[in-house]
């Protein structure tokens, strides 16, 4: 499990060496020292700083403060602008799906729908991530610089990756894999797990039980002296990682009573639990807070979508947070086309009662902390990966524009396939295709 990969810091002292470097590694930008000066800086962990300076060296932030920029740095004046850590989307399958209904472009789940195995713990998002997905620059243009890209479907969907929204190759995209195991005990997962809560919980318990036994008896498994299990060896290994606490387990569930059952299950199996969805979580907020389990909430939901989520409310995030639950805000578990709207979701969480500073933390530091990535992500502080966004104003306000996005210290392009199409049709008729 590599922690956020650090490229060797390639400082270009001489123009000639820079030139050679570029020749040798096309597509890899050389490192430079960048100083964003005069901005309003939300450090997240510390106080908000006015007219502050953020210094980026290579992939990392080297200082945040009110001092002068270092000599030789490329100074970017962001007076009147707001600087935050890049936002983090923690749900969905960004980079695994290009077009939802086009199977050949979908790598978030096995094909075959219900016929596929319900438990696919071995499924590894990183195998399918497409760094050239058009969704990635589109998400970045919304100020999102990292995402948890997760498989979906079934009872156990598989394992996710933490990705940074830049890079032409999978190794540049992926910061950590496997990141977490993803389980669905909502309506979809229950259906895949036999159609009743008991069958789904039962299958899950049995799978973890098989994995626990396997971890102790790998020799028996290899000798074919292991008990009957529907799971593959790789499934058992993946479940074992979760049992051993090497990766957290994200469990999607909606109904208040299911949330409590999941809290019990996680305690029983000693899982590092992250709740997702939890539409009725506000009804049992004290219990979630006592269990110290973080919750990923999609704020813009207020309809009883099913009999499992009759208590869905706009103020779920605010109520959970008020009860002391660590809340992560998300655009919801879709294929990643809408991650650019994370800021709008967070703004609506504020509109419905969440303090603004907390909402900002819930799309930056809290997601990083929840997935064990806060050593490198989630705030503006020396030593952290330089995922930084410059906004024209309040990041949640609709009139605000994303002006600059730095991912791993590199200023990224805000050109997307969509802006290219717009420009292509700026005058009619459009020019013929080249």
């Amino acid at each position, binding site marked *: 499990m590599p922690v956020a990969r650090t490229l060797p810091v390639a400082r270009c002292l001489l123009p000639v060496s820079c030139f050679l470097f570029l020749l040798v590694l096309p597509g890899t930008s050389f490192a430079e020292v960048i100083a964003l000066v005069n901005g309003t800086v939300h450090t997240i962990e510390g106080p908000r700083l006015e007219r502050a300076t953020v210094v980026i060296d290579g992939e990392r932030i080297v200082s945040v403060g009110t001092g002068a920029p270092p000599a030789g740095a490329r100074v970017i004046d962001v007076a009147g602008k707001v600087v935050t850590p890049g936002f983090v989307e923690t749900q969905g399958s960004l980079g695994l799906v*290009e*077009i*939802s*209904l*086009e199977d050949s472009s979908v790598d978030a789940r096995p094909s075959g729908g219900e016929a596929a195995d319900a438990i696919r713990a071995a499924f590894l998002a990183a195998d399918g991530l497409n760094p050239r997905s058009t*969704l990635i620059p589109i998400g970045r243009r919304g100020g999102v610089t990292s995402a948890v890209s997760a498989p979906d479907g079934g009872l156990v969907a598989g394992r996710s990756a933490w990705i940074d929204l830049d890079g032409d190759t999978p190794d540049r995209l992926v910061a950590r894999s496997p990141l977490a195991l993803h389980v669905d005990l909502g309506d979809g997962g229950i259906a895949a797990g036999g159609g009743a809560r008991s069958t789904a919980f039962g299958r899950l318990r049995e799978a973890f039980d098989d994995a626990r036994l396997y971890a102790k008896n790998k020799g028996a498994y290899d000798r074919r002296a292991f008990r009957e299990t529907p799971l593959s060896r790789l499934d058992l290994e993946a479940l074992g990682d979760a049992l051993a606490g090497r990766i957290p387990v994200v469990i999607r569930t909606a109904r208040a009573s299911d949330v409590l059952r999941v809290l019990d299950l996680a305690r029983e199996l000693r899982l590092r639990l992250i709740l997702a969805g939890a539409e*009725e979580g*506000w*009804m049992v907020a004290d219990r979630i807070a006592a269990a110290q389990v973080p919750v990923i909430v999609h704020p*813009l*939901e*207020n*309809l*009883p*979508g*099913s*009999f499992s*989520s*009759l*208590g869905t*409310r706009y103020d779920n995030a605010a*109520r959970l947070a008020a009860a002391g639950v660590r809340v992560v805000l998300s655009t919801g578990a879709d*294929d990643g*086309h*809408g991650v*650019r*709207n994370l800021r*709008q979701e967070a*703004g*609506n969480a*504020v*509109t419905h009662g969440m303090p603004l500073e907390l909402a900002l933390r819930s799309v930056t530091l809290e997601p990083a902390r929840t997935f064990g990535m806060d050593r490198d992500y989630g705030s503006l502080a020396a030593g952290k990966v330089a995922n930084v966004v410059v906004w024209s104003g309040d990041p*949640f*306000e*609709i*009139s605000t*524009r994303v002006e600059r996005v730095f991912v791993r210290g590199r200023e990224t392009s805000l050109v997307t396939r*969509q*802006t290219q*199409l*717009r420009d292509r*049709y700026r005058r*009619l008729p*459009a020019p013929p295709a080249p």
Partner: protein
Amino acid sequence: MRRILLLALCAACGGPRGGAEEPEATREEEIPLPPLPWVTPTSPAADHVVESPSVMLRGATVMTASGDILENGSVLFEDGRIVAVGQGIPVPEGCEVVDASGRWITPGLIDTHSHVGVYPSPGAAAHADGNEATSPTTPQVDASDSFWPQDPAIPRLLAAGVTTIQVLPGSANLIGGRGFTVHLVPQRSAEEMHFPGAPDGMKMACGENPKRVYGERHSAPSTRMGNVAGYRAAFQGAAEYRIAWRTWQEQWRGWRRKRIAFERARDAGTADAGEQESRYGVAVDAGPTKAPAPEDPGPEPPPPGRDFGKDALVGVMEGTVLVQNHCYRADEMLRMIELGREFGFRIRSFHHAVEAYKIRDVLAREEVAVSTWSDWWGFKLEAYDSVLENLALLAEAGARGVLHSDSPMYVQRFNQEAAKAMFDGRAAGIDIPENTALRWITANPAWVLGIHERTGTLEPGKVADVVVWSGSPWSVYTRVDQTWIDGRLAYDRAHPERTPRTDFEVGLGVDP
């Protein structure tokens, strides 16, 4: 049922030309044609009267959607209609004054594309009433016959400032059936919620959905060419049906003329043969005759069989039923405009239409509106070429853009989504005034639904559907404070206990 009754009533009152009232029915042109089956509207009459108190909302930033943005403005309404909009309007005696200082006021929001009530919450199998996906062509079905007035979405839409929606069938079918326009005053039936005077819509769908739904069953259509063949077959059938009915009308009139002549000859010397009731519902004064004795013309020619689907499609061709066409791709939209020309119908609005910006010149010239989202894309291949500036580019080209939802969640943040489209357009250098963005969710959808004379702007005489916002509607932090429909307070954030509640939500035990 409603339509059959109305047809019978229409027939009993003497047919379209009122011939029974004429003292002399001797000239050929005075024998009325029997009524055609497709001419009867399904909505209640537009001239219904609503009682509501005299109310003035005073001191707000009033955005009329007809061009004005008035600081310290007021809106006065009574008996369901707007009486005055402006600055310094005198307060009439007995008028209730609501202090709206520091607030914003807009017309009630209108959504041209909703499945509220036909795909209600919760999304249970028993609630899936939006697609009659048993045949690709089902113009005979009517969304109002599926509509469940207890959909929990309804009070939430009111709390979001939405006052009127068009409820459409889904897009599984090439021709999915009639849509109807709903005024969001909670009632016990679809009929009572039907927006008075609103014409019906006809849902049609291009592209991937119909060909996927039927292609997977190995039946037609399974391709886009199959789709077009399907529309063409349906409209050809309707065109022949229209000819058959019109031919019958003339045959009937010819028969009637001969019959009258025959009866008069038979009853020669009788001053008044009296009124006769036709089997097929036309009363005619048989008056005195001057013609020579003719022969008995035999039995009355029977009318063609009634086909409710073809009635609706003839309504489309006659322009009384408005085509609401789900269609994403530019080339397919152009194809549909051509098809309309071939069969003599117009498309009122394309829906979804993520590629509309590519043909915005044509859409402006042809006066076809575009109902679309701010930024939904990528869920299928025909939604791949989305741009954030779709609505802005359409506005710049003079085409009529509309923000629509297709979602009971998205419509609850219509103001934010219009704001996104406005600010994205401006960021790309396209001048989008606030009034233009407001019209995307008010006046322009009213036009798409054919109710623009009655709602969509804040002007005297229009229906008093008014929203009071806590701040600028373009801010993410703004909330709806009040929603007025027909001049009555339908939602008040200060009094949540007065918010309408659906039966479904009673006793579920999920309240805070």
